[in-house]
């Protein structure tokens, strides 16, 4: 077990930011912490890192209690904070060297590590640049390089892709998977469900500081009653047809809006077939039909009654 959090409670004055949170991260996982803005992801991470004092709970990393002065634990952790944290007066290379040097004293070894980190995030052409001259995406990559250059066993990334263009984002996500393949355990927080689905082996969904579901993405999707969502583009659907649709077996809801018929079904097979059969019977004209499996957003929606992102 790499990280274990038991019954963590953190208050900011009256606000209960973390509410009895339990969490375990196993060796070699890419663990995703998914939650909307303000759900307590950063707070949880800061508590785990002993950056923030908390009201209650036990936190262990690598099987030992985590404290502000637990330097032997900290030595093996790498963190990429939500806010970019680099020195504006140091160049790309100097920044990475500086932060790496907080962990690695040996100069030779450090030189090598810095070079690898620069290559890893693809900043070779920018080593002599000052942070002010970097674009947003490049700056994020520098921020990542500063956090991981010392090759930590546990890497914690707090929304590293916020405000990053899709190209940089993909590069970052691939990089994280690569770090994981090289043996690092990853904790990744985000409010983008697509990212979590793409890279995480296990996911915890949190809301208002509480864990509302944990599991692999398939396990999470299996928790809810919703099956697939079928969308039909059609010029005309009558009210009678709509209510007939709703009476079909396994159909949970059917709505027609903006020439789109959206049908949600509960779990089970043949739902698409049933709908196609109905359309044929009623001789409904249609442009396109497609069927989607539930997303983590649907999981979030079903458990909390609200959208993951608004």
């Amino acid at each position, binding site marked *: 077990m790499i990280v274990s959090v038991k019954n963590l409670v953190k208050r900011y004055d009256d606000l209960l930011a973390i509410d009895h949170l339990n969490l375990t991260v196993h060796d070699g996982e890419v663990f995703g912490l998914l939650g909307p803005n303000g759900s307590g992801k950063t707070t949880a991470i800061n508590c785990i890192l002993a950056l923030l*004092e908390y009201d209650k709970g036990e936190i262990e990393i690598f099987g030992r209690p985590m404290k502000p002065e637990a330097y032997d634990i*900290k030595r093996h952790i790498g963190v990429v904070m939500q806010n970019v944290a680099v020195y504006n*007066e*140091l160049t790309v290379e100097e920044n990475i060297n*500086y932060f790496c*040097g*907080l*962990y690695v004293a040996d100069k030779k070894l450090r030189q090598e590590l810095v070079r690898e980190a620069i290559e890893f995030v693809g900043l070779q052409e920018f080593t002599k640049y000052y942070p002010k001259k970097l674009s947003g995406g490049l700056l994020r990559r520098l921020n990542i390089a500063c956090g991981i250059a010392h090759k930590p066993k546990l890497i914690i990334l707090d929304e590293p892709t916020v405000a990053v263009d899709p190209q940089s984002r993909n590069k970052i996500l691939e990089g994280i998977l690569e770090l994981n393949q090289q043996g690092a355990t990853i904790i990744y927080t985000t409010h983008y469900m697509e990212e979590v689905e793409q890279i995480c082996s296990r996911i915890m969904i949190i809301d208002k500081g509480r864990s509302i579901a944990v599991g692999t993405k398939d396990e999470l999707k299996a928790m809810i009653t919703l099956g697939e969502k079928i969308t039909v583009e059609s010029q005309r659907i009558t009210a009678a047809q709509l209510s007939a649709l709703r009476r079909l077996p396994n159909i949970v809801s059917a709505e027609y809006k903006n020439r789109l018929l959206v049908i949600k079904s509960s779990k089970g097979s043949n739902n698409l077939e049933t709908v196609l059969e109905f359309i044929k019977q009623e001789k409904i004209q249609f442009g396109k039909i497609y069927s989607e499996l539930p997303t983590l957003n649907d999981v979030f929606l079903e458990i909390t009654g609200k959208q993951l992102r608004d």
Partner: protein
Amino acid sequence: MSLHIFGNRLKCLLRDKENVFWTMLFPILLAVFFNLALSNVNAGESFQAIKLAVVNNSSFHNDQALQTALDAAAAGEQKLFELTLTSQEQAEQLLTEQKVSAYLLVDEEPVLVVSKTGIRESIIKSFLDSYLQTTAAVNTILQNNPNNPALLFQSAGERQNYLAEVTGSAADPNNILIFFYSLIAMSCFYGGFWGMREVTDIQADISALAARINISPQHKLKAFLSSLTASYLIHFSELILLLLFLRYVLQIDFGAKSGYVVLTTALGSLAGIAYGAFISALVKKSENMKVAILIGTTMFGSFLAGMMIQDIKYLVSQKFPLLAYVNPINLLTDAFYSLYYYDTFSRYFLNITILGGMTIAFCLGTYVIVRRRKYASL
């Protein structure tokens, strides 16, 4: 002590142009300006006023404060400037024909246009910089605390007086020294810029950089002290440069006890850094507000210590003796002066002891406040 942190911090701080300007170049410019004004007075010849053109547009017309400041500097027997109000084209022409040293164009901010660099240009620039600095400080304070503007307003007003005052005052060599001693004292307290930055950079709730150091396997207090040592080394070196400049370029004689002058400067630098650190920890406002308070209080302290008008110093020590003893800049100025003036050290040691006590209080205060924040940062 971590050499890695110390070394990188040095690099970082030396590239912080703004801080280096305020803590080193600004005092040197001010010294040049003092010297010029005072030595002219000394020599008994009338001061050759610097010719300055001002573009008379509507922005200038509306900038009452700037007009007052310029008028003060361009009035009287010993005036600093000779002003020409004119159009921009005309000003440009005057400058090319070298009929004026520079011209001032007020747009959103006053901009100085020069055709070469030299002592006259530096004086105009230093005048403008200190004017801008003070008005910015006053504005920030007014915005944040409109109920109690009296304090700074006063010092801003005096600021303009001082330009007239300095040029006109009697030039007893002892009195001239007071100006320079208070200038050194002010420079010591401008070290507050460095102290402020140090404290900001260790508070994980304010700065993401601090968080990054907090999560690393570095002992917090040790990291902070390494970094602080870098600040101290830089600031002390700047002050040594200032002393050398005063001594060898401006030929100011500090008397026989020059070793003590350096020692006092070393303590003054520490006091200034500690003061900035304390302000930074104490004031839970924006960075700009902290800077404004630092500059405002330092300027005001220097003013009371006689940097702008010497009589103020005597007034304070006669009417409000306690104020003379709690104003660290005055303590420092007097410490320098007593080195020069008295043969015994008793007055000097008294001042240094009080100042040392204040420095310790600033440090402890900073430590306690930073510790009490929610983030476990020290």
